[in-house]
């Protein structure tokens, strides 16, 4: 039953005078809110400005912009996979495994003369099924992190078995250049894939009741359930969207490389995770915006490009990416404190009568 201590989470009254200090219009909370809302864009613009001055004339060119966009495309796609699932409240680390299986499935089907569209949709379907399996395990009460890491291992085994542990080459007849290496209006094809995913994802999350509820479930699954939202359905949706995006990412990577590798690219996972962390999406769910993941991916690609154009070894870019991930989490923590979020308010007073 409700003890006085449990009521401590709900205190105050309906007038602004009794509002918590966080609402007082000081500069610090406003700055913190601004950093959370636009920090990732500011960091990216700052990087562009910095490298334009420092890396040399080859950096701030249309050609390099294309290269950066192309390089960030796969990170952005995998970032969307991780981000959509994280918003629904679970971290899906099986993403590179799903990508590997989907890439191999697509390449094998193309090798068997299956029509391209069918092969692509079948591979995306495989991603959806993997998402459903992840979701089923998590709905049974298994820990999402452990489940999806297990899935990652299992999927890399499946990809290896299907491919004989050899890269599956795309033949000249069954190539996916239209999705990988072709340019349209001088823009690389993967950039269009990113655009479609992010526009659809943004519309879903901000304009439809489905996205609104998915975010609500990510933020307070038990609360949403008790007011009648089908919480499990929206968590399942998060995993399915993640699986589908991961599969699309795997197909695009295969298209770009003209071969499907059965080995999951965990480096790609960490880059995507960094992009998601930079975007401010809470890895615990319910908080964040998908378009900002795009800027997270752009930051990583811009950093790589600038350092390489300046003539530094790629290892420096790897180091910088790692620092970015930790730095992004630190900024997230710092701004949350400045805003006075009591992160677990609302769950602390849950009780059984």
């Amino acid at each position, binding site marked *: 039953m409700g003890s006085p201590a449990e009521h401590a989470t709900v205190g105050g009254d309906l007038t602004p005078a009794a509002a918590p200090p966080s609402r007082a219009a000081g500069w610090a909370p406003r700055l913190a809110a601004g950093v959370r809302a636009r920090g990732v864009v500011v960091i990216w613009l700052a990087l562009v400005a910095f490298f334009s001055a420092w890396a040399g004339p080859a950096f701030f060119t249309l050609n390099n912009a294309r290269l950066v966009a192309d390089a960030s495309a796969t990170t952005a796609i995998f970032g969307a996979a991780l981000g959509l699932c994280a918003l629904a409240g679970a971290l899906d680390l099986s993403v590179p495994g799903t990508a590997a299986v989907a890439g191999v499935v697509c390449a094998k089907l193309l090798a068997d003369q299956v029509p391209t569209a069918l092969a692509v949709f079948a591979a995306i379907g495989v991603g959806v099924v993997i998402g459903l399996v992840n979701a089923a395990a998590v709905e049974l009460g298994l820990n999402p992190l452990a489940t999806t890491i297990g899935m990652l291992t299992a999927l890399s085994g499946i990809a290896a078995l299907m491919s004989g542990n050899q890269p599956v080459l795309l033949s000249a007849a069954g190539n996916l250049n239209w999705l990988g290496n072709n340019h349209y209006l001088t823009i690389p094809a993967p950039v269009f894939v990113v655009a479609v995913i992010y526009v659809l994802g943004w519309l879903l999350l901000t304009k439809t009741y489905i996205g609104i509820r998915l*975010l609500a479930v990510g*933020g307070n699954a038990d609360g949403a359930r008790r007011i009648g939202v089908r919480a499990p359905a929206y968590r399942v949706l998060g995993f399915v969207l993640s699986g589908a995006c991961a599969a699309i990412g795997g197909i695009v990577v295969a298209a770009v490389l003209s071969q499907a590798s059965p080995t999951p690219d965990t480096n790609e996972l960490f880059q995507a995770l960094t992009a998601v962390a930079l975007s401010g999406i809470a890895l615990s769910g319910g908080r964040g915006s998908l378009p900002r993941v795009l800027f997270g991916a752009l930051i990583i690609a811009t950093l790589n490009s600038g350092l390489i154009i300046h003539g530094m070894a790629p290892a420096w870019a790897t180091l910088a990416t790692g620092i970015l991930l930790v730095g992004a989490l630190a900024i997230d923590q710092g701004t949350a404190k400045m805003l006075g979020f009591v992160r677990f308010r609302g769950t602390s007073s849950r009780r059984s*009568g």
Partner: protein
Amino acid sequence: MLALTGIDVHFGAVRALSQVDFLLNAGEVVALVGDNGAGKSTLLSVMAGARRPTGGHISVDGTRHDFHGPRDAAAAGVQIVYQDLALVDAADIATNITLGREPRRRAPAGWLGLVDKKAMRRVAREQLAALEVSNVGAVTQPVEMLSGGQRQAVALARAAIRLGTDNARMLLLDEPTAALGYQQSRQVERFIVRTAASGVGVVIVTHDLPLCFEVANRIVVLNRGRKVADVERAAADVDHVVGWITGSREPQAGLA
């Protein structure tokens, strides 16, 4: 209207509720009181479909219902405001108030599940105004920026909307004034009285005896999972109610 018969809830060996009967009529305010651990919130969660009883049954308007979850209870016309409010902190006020009943855009956009954000904000503002809450500020602020009383207002507004849209006729409030100051408690009291006057049956779980005597038509006392008293407010005496709550007074004839 809402009738619970012989409700048992056992958690392993612990009997949270034993053979509790409970009746709620249209337009009536019933206060459910008892000490900590008496089973008040458990009984409320059974009515709301959030907890399945181990035994007994629930009927609404004479029809038996088996609530498998909060959705079933809502479909039968029961709405609840939880003590922890069940709000989504990161979401804004308008989203919280309309969550689960989001106004849709007109077809064909509505077919795609597109919501009408303007209507969402308008509905949220109207509901807060109806609750006489004018100081919450913009309904686009996230709920985590609000004070406790403002959060309570948001949760009440959400329930109030559902009373309208779902044609709900039963409203359950778990400790609606526990965290509130004097003025805000009066606002909640007026909300309860208005809601009951519109024909809705209201159950309030509370430790606040003055509130019981102010708004309730009937007072039901639980003690250690059993119903020990069920009295009309007019016939009730504060000392008797306190005696039942603490267990120092014998249960009413025919109970426990």
